[in-house]
């Protein structure tokens, strides 16, 4: 087991299997079809993301460097959370970008019955170490355990 420490964007305790993207997550391209066509597993629809395409994102500990793409990104994440199709948590190796930050904060402030803990600045070593389906446990202080 390895432990990493990052900055808490939205706090929470959760344990979930890892889903890893080494490229930036294009939020709109990844979630749009799932939200549009009632896919509760939130299967990633971004053909350009070799790591995630076709994989279930809902309920996973989504490990990624950053999000990229359209400035709808934040509101798409908010919608995913509102429809209970969000990742169990989002773990960024880099400092969070303004679009993902918006999604995380909007979900935290405006949705009462939904949690999507977010931690950023976990470092390149985190993304190099974590692999799909490893068990991730995160704590409110920004500690991330990977086993």
């Amino acid at each position, binding site marked *: 087991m390895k432990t990493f420490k990052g900055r808490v964007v939205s706090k929470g305790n959760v344990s979930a299997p890892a889903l890893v993207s080494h490229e930036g997550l294009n939020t709109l391209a990844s979630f749009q079809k799932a939200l549009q066509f009632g896919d509760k597993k939130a299967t990633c629809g971004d053909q350009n993301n070799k790591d995630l395409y076709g994989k279930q994102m809902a309920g996973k500990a989504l490990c990624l460097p950053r999000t990229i793409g359209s400035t709808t990104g934040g*509101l798409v994440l908010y919608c995913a959370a509102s429809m209970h199709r969000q990742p169990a948590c989002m773990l960024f190796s880099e400092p969070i970008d303004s679009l993902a930050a918006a999604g995380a904060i909007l979900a935290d402030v*405006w949705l009462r019955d939904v949690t999507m803990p977010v931690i950023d600045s976990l470092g390149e070593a985190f993304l190099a170490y974590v692999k799909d389906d490893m068990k991730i446990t995160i704590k409110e202080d920004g500690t991330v355990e990977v086993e």
Partner: protein
Amino acid sequence: MKLTEEQQAILDGSQGETLAKVMETMVRYGELFGADSMEKITGNYNHLVTSFGLKALKPVYDLLDQLIEAGVVSKQKFSADPRPMDKNVPSNFIQNFVFNNFMYTRQNEYEEQLRKLGLMDRDAFTRTCYMDEVGNTPKKGEVLSWSESSAVVYANSVLGARCNRNSGIIDVMGSIVGYVPRFGFLTDEGRKAKWIVEIRTSKKPEAQLLGSAVGMKVMEDVPYIVGLDKWLDGKLDDNAKTYLKDFGAATASNGAVGLYHVEGITPEAVEQGRALIGEGAKTYVIDDAELQRVYDSYPVIWKNKDARPKLCFMGCPHMSLEQLKSWTGKLENGLKESGNAKVLVSTVFTASPGVIKEFRKTDYAARLEKTGVILSYICPLMYMNNPLSEKMPVITSSNKLRTYTSARYYTDDEILNQLTKGE
């Protein structure tokens, strides 16, 4: 973050719970990026990225309803991205069924919501809101709460306004409280370049290709571009503005650029020159070979890579009046040379309703119609962003459209050949 008494009172609920939550959202957003204060929005108008009544975005419409019902709306009017549908754009029965019954089922309802929230006018739908024909043109130094990456990068770079790359909803909430957190492009330090990009091409580089190369290299950093001014005749005229519109949209979509400086052209570069280059800036040289390398790197995700194009979209972001006129001339000449009467691929030119209105006042409008090109205000991205359209072999010279959809990129000259000569 240091708040004024007024801002703190709003956060503490002096003007109701809903406005307090809006302020909390903006403050937390700023704190994540080290904002030291909230800065007053000084631009006349806002711009929103969400223009589509997409069924999947129901939670957004519910949230906006919550704001409207609580009377928490902005006094600032706004423009929004293009409408997603236009009956003039070719689509088959199944596409129409999907657009109307599965995707954009909330379009009318959402446009009504936008009117309540303060849409500038019923046709204020375009990514190129900053064009004179639309009228949402911020002045240098004005502080904005805009979203839409291509509009933000244009406002920052070409107009010298100050705006971060905000997400949808954050755009509305900033406008409601009247302040945005002071960080990133709102600060002098955040506007310094981390890259020097040297243009050493043998001819004027294709705007969309150059922007793609720059975006993919610098990602979210600010580039200071040297050697481009000679290809723009050393001045920021209408042609240069059109070039920079397309260049900037490609930097923002192929990377995440929110601001660039072009030596001798963009306002801050003209005023401050190389003082805008930050310490330790890296250098990226772009020559003909580098542009070719970038072009060759684009994946073709058509099922049949040799398929004959079924549709061509030009104008993402929307075309300028100058582009519509010059393309009309180019098509006429191309068709005359090839002996064809009309374009050989079904083609849609997109522009803002304001630009289309002005274009229709000129004799170019009838001439363009004669070539067979359809003129529309639609958003090509919204047309393409579904499984049915994705399967179509669509061509474009928009690098933004290429990035987000299955559309295949060609240079302007290549597009012209395909449309007029079929090669």
